[in-house]
């Protein structure tokens, strides 16, 4: 078990009088153990304490999907739960899905279909696609729309996102997804 690496984003969460809990969690395959304030949001823990800034906070209320990560393999919002709620869980962020260099298959398809513009919402979409691939969601099923409806993108008009997602899901073996997992 290791302490989280020191990162340039690390915040002191202040008030020593504040209730804290020891949190043990697996993040991108690494065991992490930290004393965190009970009220610390999971998104802040991942971004500020662990420096995993790929997830974005767009709304802080679970409406936009930019902060989506995988918790025990399921796509989940990190901005509307507390870090302490994930005790014992396996968390994967986009950093955990990235190839050592360049782009993995799903990321390549997003680029080829021009499925991102400003790119702020993109990490969230990718995590939902990974979770759909794990479930082998059929690219032409209505289920795709139900998964995607949890995300907002203000730039693309969604057309190219649909195309990239369907393309990714049609490559059913999921072998294109690389990463530390």
């Amino acid at each position: 078990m290791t302490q989280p690496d020191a990162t340039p984003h690390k915040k002191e969460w202040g008030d020593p009088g504040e209730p804290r809990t020891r949190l043990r969690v697996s993040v991108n395959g690494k065991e992490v153990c930290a004393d965190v304030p009970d009220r610390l949001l999971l998104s802040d823990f991942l971004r500020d304490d662990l420096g995993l800034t790929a997830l974005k906070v767009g709304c802080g209320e679970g409406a936009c999907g930019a902060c989506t990560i995988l918790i025990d393999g399921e796509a989940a919002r990190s901005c509307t739960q507390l870090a302490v709620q994930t005790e014992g869980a396996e968390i994967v962020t986009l950093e955990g899905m990235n190839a050592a260099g360049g782009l993995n298959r799903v990321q390549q398809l997003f680029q080829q279909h021009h499925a991102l513009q400003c790119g702020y919402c993109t990490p969230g979409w990718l995590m939902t696609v990974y979770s759909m691939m794990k479930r082998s969601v059929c690219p032409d099923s209505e289920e795709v729309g139900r998964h995607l409806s949890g995300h907002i993108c203000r730039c693309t008009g969604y057309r190219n996102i649909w195309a990239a997602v369907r393309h990714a899901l049609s490559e059913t073996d999921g072998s294109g997804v690389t990463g530390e997992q």
Partner: protein
Amino acid sequence: MTEETPIYARRSRGRRYAGEAVLRAEDEQLLRGAGGFLPDLPASHAAEICMVRSTQPHAIVRSVRRERALGSPGVIAVLAADDLEFVDDALPCVDMIPGTMDVRQRVIARDRVRYVGQIVAIVVAENRYLAEDAAALVEIDYEPLPPITDHMAAKEPGATLLYPELGTNVVYQVKQRDGNPDFAAREGDLVIRKRFEFHRQTAIPMEPRGVIAKLIDNGERVHVESPTQLPQVLRSALAGAFGLRPDRIRVTAPRLGGGFGCKEMVYPEELLVPAVARKLQRPVRWLEDRREHFAATTHAREETIDAEAVVAPDGTFVGLRIKGWANTGAAYGFVGNTPITAMGAMVRGPYRVPNLDSHMFSVVTNKTPLNVLRGAGAPQAALLMERLLDEAARMLKIDRAEIRRRNLIQPSELPLDRGRTEFAGAYSVLYDEGDYPRCFEAALKLAEYESFEAERKAAAERGKLRGLGISMYVEITAVGPSETARIALQPDGTVLLYSSIMPVGQGSETVQRQLIAEELGIAMEQVAIRQGDTDEVPDAVGTFASRGAAVGGAVGRLAARELVKRIVECCAAACACDSAALRWEFGGVKFPGPADEFVPMAEIPARLATLRRVAEATPEKIEAKYRLEVPRPSYAYAAHVAVVEIDPQTGRIEIPRYTVAHDCGKIINPLLVEGQIVGGVVQGIGEVLRERLVYDSAGDLKTRAMMDYVLPGPSDAPADFRLWHMETPTSFNPFGMRGVGEGGTIGAHGAISNAVADALRDYEIAVEGSGPFTPTWVMETLQRPRRAGPDENRS
């Protein structure tokens, strides 16, 4: 060629980049989650700020008591207006023409608050959680004043005044006239009078705002990081606010997570956060949360317009008279008066309408300041004209396409002077080259207009109401007054462009690299780009009004052309020959002599280093700068055709087909142009069908979250999107380019509104901007009486 061949040499002669659907290199960082947005930047030493914002729409601030807040754990400071010194505390506004009353926003409320969300105090603490705890303990004693949020009431004499010293809430007016503004109806002419009410909206970029400020260079300079569309304007504002020379300020803007106009603004926080850093002598950071974003980031669109059109019996428009009032909110935005200027300037779009009398006013109210949003005032302008055309067609029993044909400006009439304007960066509206009728016919054909009635009937048999709407527009794009770029040959033989255009998602990095690679005849991989640092590009204008590719791209390419001259001069000096003897071709320099030697750009720095031993005159650094004057904007245009289908059981409006034919001049990258148009259209669909900011009667903003403010989602994208590019180069741009970033949104307002009206044509309804057309609105409409006959308005 072998694998070992360097990439620049692999480029075949004559290969082009401009016009190609090149994939974006910037995607790699973004897709790996390493985009480097402001909240991602290192700030571990920064104290965190939470703004204490007014909960009152209109009140005297009697006192700000901070004792309890100061006693809260981790608090570093609690500051109010009196604690911060500004040489000039007014935020800049560029569109104050002579006669405009000064209602520029002040950075922090002094004695009076004028909208919910205005900053009253600043809490600085060790982290955001502790700052928020303490902010809740700041006690502000307000003496409430009656709020006024309705601009139509605020403009009347006797209304509550926001600025009593001005004696009125009507603070700005602008006229636009053309032909005979005193035109009148002749016998037999149709007179259409309509009131258009455009509802209040906001951009909601996925990334909220934020500011990091710190002292640098031994405390002698202030470094401000902010995701702004206008880093250089912010630097000037900071210099003015602090009374410092501009070179004492460094602004760096990271990549923006969307802008859409709401970041074309200098915000109070962008001056306050650096002021706190200076006062406390330590780095500070403020990150906006979405809840405060709704009240603290500028709003857009809200206007009421009375329009009167005189139409001859054959359907040609004789004249248009409009009088309108914008709900400006509590103070000017940076370009807060631009939307109503655009209304007068652009309302006639591609239609002749020889006579125009437009008179528009800005009215202050107790709402968040109004500013621009994708399209500025043009979406409202196009909607207004297109609704009048549909009404005229209905009343005169002329086909909707035919009435437009009779009014369209013909190519032979272009260029066409449409009169003087106060639109910033343009002095008169002078349409450039184009073929509006061809664009129009192309859209109708692609949209299957001729067979639509059969489609309507087939839908009716399924129990659905189908409607079709047409909207054209002409858009003022690529505005001036000028732009500057700098480009340098790097020691490794690549070039680096210092650009004035901020990446907001539009792909500016890729298009600028394409144009430079094209100009120099090198590979795109040999072109790097940096932007947003005022130390590197001190005198840029900024990113707005669809000018990034057309103006920013042009100036970068012209700077590259200058760089070639410099390279050739340096090579000539180094080999002590006449520069006329050297030639630049296919990405390198051809040296004279029997060998007729070709040196590719990548090898030039090394070659110069060798030659420098013999010729002392060669400079270390090869750089060029170019300033492009843009005396005239160029005018992009498009025709949109929307088909909507309404389910009368649920009130849901779907968009089975959407068609756009457009002309943005020479296209640099069709992939990105398509992305801009589709994204813009869906944003427009959301604005017409979903989004609305709601204030209650007490002046409080009720829509404070994405859960309240419904944005278009994945299922709102048109099922079948058809796009046709026309490329008529404009002579107003050195490379024939016009802007395309906003057009999608401009066309969607009129096309969707007309389509909804067409689907519900049997009912008495108003779609004159009075959206959004939510399912509730549809269900209520279907309860209304059926329409009477068309003839009562004849004069």
